[in-house]
């Protein structure tokens, strides 16, 4: 491979020190993900999926080994640099949507722009993102608790995309949605992949995993098939 992969895990381990003893959530995992891949991560509960997502989302750092994202060693970055990377390079889509309850749909989407540019959005980009997921102005004024699950997830996708991230991390994005709505959300993700984004998807559901081009299966903190 000539170019460096967008995401590179080199012998990454994550050990949690619990009262009951050390628990190895990721056990010497090595993995490359290139730009514009659509990867599904599967595995039973406790297999290390969430730990893997936390690593890929720079919410955590490896206990040993090296994790490179966009060419940078995550462990060597300062706290603030990691925060900026989460803001600029990665878009998160969560199972429970995790919208900010005190902000309207529009403000939720505008929020990452404010974090990045330290001012309210005047470019109209937040509106564009909401329109792309099927929201009009009236709906955008609603608070998350006034929206259905599918609508909340659309807002969450718009929020994840508004800073134009290279990587889209989706943690069971359809897990809290009915099947029909879930497939509609998957359609959006497929289109985003077609537009050139790298999509990483954690799911229990083999039907959802079928959308991906590559499926990585984890078990007891190791990759069993890739």
């Amino acid at each position, binding site marked *: 491979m000539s170019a460096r992969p967008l995401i590179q895990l080199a012998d990454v381990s994550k050990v949690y020190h619990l009262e009951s003893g050390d628990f190895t959530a990721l056990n010497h995992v090595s993995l490359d993900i290139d730009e514009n891949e659509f990867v599904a991560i599967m595995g039973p509960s406790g297999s290390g999926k969430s730990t893997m997502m*936390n690593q890929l*989302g720079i*919410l*955590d750092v490896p206990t040993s080994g090296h994790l490179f994202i966009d060419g940078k060693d995550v462990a060597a970055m300062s*706290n*603030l640099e990691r*925060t*900026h*990377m*989460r*803001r*600029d390079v990665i878009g*998160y889509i*969560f199972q429970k949507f*995790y*919208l*900010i*309850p*005190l*902000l309207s749909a529009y*403000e939720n989407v*505008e*929020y*990452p722009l*404010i*974090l*990045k540019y330290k*001012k*309210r959005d005047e470019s109209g980009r937040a509106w564009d993102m909401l329109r792309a997921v099927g929201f009009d102005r009236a709906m955008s004024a609603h608070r998350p608790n006034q929206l259905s699950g599918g609508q909340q997830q659309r807002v969450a996708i718009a*929020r994840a995309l508004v800073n134009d991230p290279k990587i889209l991390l989706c943690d069971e994005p359809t897990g809290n949605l009915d099947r029909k709505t879930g497939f509609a959300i998957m359609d959006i993700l497929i289109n985003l992949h077609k537009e050139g984004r790298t999509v990483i998807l954690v799911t229990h559901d083999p039907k959802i995993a079928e959308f991906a081009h590559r499926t990585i299966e984890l078990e007891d903190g190791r990759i069993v098939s890739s």
Partner: protein
Amino acid sequence: MRDIFLDLSIRSVRLNFLRSILASIGIVIGVVAISSMGMLGANMQLSVKQQLSSDVNTIMITSDVVRTTSTAGTPVTSEGIDKSTLNDIKNAAGQNDVIPVHRTSTQFTIGSTDGRGGIYGLDPNDVTKFLTIDQGDNIRGANDALVGANIATNFNMNVGSRIKIGQNNVSVTRPTVRVSGILAARGFASDGINTDNAIIVPDTWYTDQYGNKDIYDQVNVIMTNIDEINQTEAAIDEKVNRKTNVVRITDASSRLSSISSTLGTITSFILAIGSISLVVAAVSIFNVMMMSVNERVQEIGILLSIGTEKGEIRRMFLYEAFILGVIGAVVGGFASLVIGYSVVSAMIGNTAYFFMPESIMYVPYGMIIGIVVCIASGLYPAWKASNMDPIDALRSE
């Protein structure tokens, strides 16, 4: 458009309106306590200062009792304050009133009764600057005089009565003055002009009788601003006592300053009692802020995970504390005006000084202290929120 973190804080306060208002009431009480206690103390000081300064705003200058003359080398008593010294004093005193005084004691006769008392020679224009005429008018004619309250009572005098000045001696014709007015009782005066048992005559009449024109026994300087008394004394001292001590400069301000410092201590003490309520308020603000942080753990997790900086999280919670402080301070500020005014009027009975800067400044002081206390109480909760682990925070329900 506003800072989104300020918006988030405002919405959080609005969401927990009752709880926030209750916490702010603590600050209201604290601000009211500090402001009205402070104002009470300040008004107390101001009114006592006013009562005392009728006596103590005067610098008394007398000629130095003993000075050595260069020729004889033996101590002699000085003759008094001469014209050039008086001019020096006037220059040094600036805008303040300078009152030269002639004084001696004399025998006198009213009707057929003999008496003895002080006699003061004053420029009639100076009289009303520090003396109060109870009946009649100020000196107008060359032979007019004012009499002190005690003489007037003891000798049963009225305006228009005549007084013969000097020792009762059949062979000499004594000068006579006409009483144009009777002075109000003065009691013991710390400016050295004890008029109750004295007769006040025009300075021209005095020097005609006793000589010593342009030689004064005492010069008083009446200060318009008591706070400048020390500077003025120093200025006079520098100007007049350049080589040798020509005059002695005294005042009663040490009495005022000791009373002022006692009142200052009392003010600090009641302010300290007032601040206890602010400490209680700080605890309740701290409690509400901790509740706000603990209720919003997941939200903080979301904010951190999508790239919010720690400083921005801190700012959000400090804004919240600031809002509680501002609500408390504004309400407390208005309440302080009302309550402070009532307390001052009830306890001092005089609200003349309430709106003077020395007193009213306690309202903004109290408000600022209230806001600062709120922000200080929010520091730890804000720090705690910003240092949460995003993964743990997200997971909490």
